[in-house]
């Protein structure tokens, strides 16, 4: 049953050290505010799952929150590398990061399997590639009807899923629209789900078949305006492409990243972090 609470309380109550944590949002509605709160509360040894780690996990990895990453495409979209992720994999900085690497199709199917309470996903994939050589979890299964050999991979079953959405009503029913990614599947595959939203409204006024997560599959719901920035929230604000480009400079260098991280830690919440961005001293970190 969804409970309205602050994001700080939600992370404190429902995300523990060592948890398997999936924060989803495919370019759109990436829950950055929640990522910052996890950093601020200094969670450690997290096993992170996300199709596209994006800047949100680059930040968590650089801040030392993660010991494992399950992913399928780890780049800065339209810009280049995720340098904190690369530094962890290539140089064990700030400490070693185990990786479980899969394809988009596989992880999307694995979330569906998790949501459907099945132990594994089945897909026509990976044939001839080197993935099964480096990821022993990628196995095969023979169709009992046709004899076709298909890829079988373990379902994603996170302890916690966190997503961002546009709206929730007073009871905590959640509405999202636009590019949906695997947000719904992430919530339904997880033991606990935290949803941050742009606004709390008296009524969703959604048409039939809209993507709604009923309040009783959500654990905590938190009002965090601009909580997906620098990604975007359809109908609310655009993607901050300049930040994605600037992140290449910030993340490339450990010291500069460290300076940026201090501003996350110093802010009491995401709103204060966003206010801080206008400070010329903070601006200098991005130049």
């Amino acid at each position: 049953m969804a409970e309205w609470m602050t994001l700080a309380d939600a992370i404190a109550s429902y995300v523990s050290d060592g948890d398997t944590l999936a924060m989803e949002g495919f370019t759109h509605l990436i829950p950055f505010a929640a990522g910052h709160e996890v950093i601020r509360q200094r969670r450690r040894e997290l096993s992170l799952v996300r199709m596209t780690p994006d800047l949100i996990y680059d930040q968590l990895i650089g801040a030392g929150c993660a010991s494992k990453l399950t992913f399928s495409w780890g780049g800065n979209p339209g810009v280049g590398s995720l340098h904190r992720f690369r530094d962890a994999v290539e140089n064990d900085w700030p400490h070693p990061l185990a990786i479980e690497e899969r394809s988009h199709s596989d992880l999307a199917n694995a979330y569906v399997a998790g949501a459907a309470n099945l132990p594994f996903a089945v897909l026509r994939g990976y044939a001839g590639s080197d993935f099964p050589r480096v990821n022993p979890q990628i196995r095969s299964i023979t169709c009992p009807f046709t004899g076709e050999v298909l890829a079988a991979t373990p379902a994603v079953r996170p302890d916690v899923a966190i997503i961002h959405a546009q709206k929730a009503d007073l009871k905590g029913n959640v509405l999202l629209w636009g590019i949906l990614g695997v947000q719904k599947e992430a919530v339904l595959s997880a033991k606990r789900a935290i949803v941050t939203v742009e606004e709390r409204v008296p009524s969703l006024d959604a048409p039939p078949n809209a993507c709604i997560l009923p309040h009783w599959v959500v654990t905590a719901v938190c009002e965090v305006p601009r909580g997906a920035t620098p990604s975007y929230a359809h109908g609310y604000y655009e993607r901050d492409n300049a930040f994605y480009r600037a992140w290449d400079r910030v993340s490339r260098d450990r010291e500069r990243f460290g300076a940026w991280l201090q501003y996350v830690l110093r802010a009491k919440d995401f709103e204060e972090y966003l206010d801080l961005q206008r400070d010329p001293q903070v601006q200098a970190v991005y130049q």
Partner: protein
Amino acid sequence: MSASFTSEEIMTVAAARMLSDGTVCFVGIGLPSTAANLARLTHAPEAILIYESGPIGAKPPVLPLSIGDGNLAETADTVVSTPEIFRYWLQGGRIDVGFLGAAQLDRIANINTTVVGSYDKPKARLPGAGGAPEISSSVKEVLIIVKQSKRTFVEKLDFITSVGFLTGGDAREAAGLSGNGPTAVITDLCVMRPDPLTRELKVSNIHPGVNRETIKASTGWTVGFAETCEDTPPPTAHELETLRDLKTRTALAHGIQGDAE
């Protein structure tokens, strides 16, 4: 190279020409997206552009910077979830053409986008698979678009992320992969196509102003030329104008957006 267009422009134009009107195309971000949208804005107005983030029939007014930009969703015929894109549309066999990029490519069109060096201790950790392995094994035809150099066109891949023709010959079919695999590799120097029997990539078209020596010097294996090898027709005025307009609109849109935030 002629002064009237750049090597990136001829590469984009050559790739766009390969999309026929009405084709259902699975589009990756970057050069593939530029080429697919150029085709849509020139000779293929009915091409259906599908992005892995969920938009089907996207008609973006400017090029998206990321795979899930809002203008893809706003201009699409429909937007579906990511699992649906991969399950019903890609694996379902509804895609004619898939565009892929590559960090490394071998002579039989296998692709690496995972690591340079060993997997456990990589020299360079690359982004990884994304949708590519299942695109390469599910679409009817794969087009690879990539800038040519010895670093990219290598004798042996460090990792096979997405399959072209595996070891060549009929190895692809024997491995149970559907689709015809890569039918062309479009670079900034030339177009290569697989030999029908050995499946080794051979140069089939040379872009204007490029000579064979340059292509050989930019390929990590001893590259062959098809007997029927001919020159790529230069971009038409219409193609160039449309491409440059699109790029200008895109830079303006993203620039303004960036400054405003």
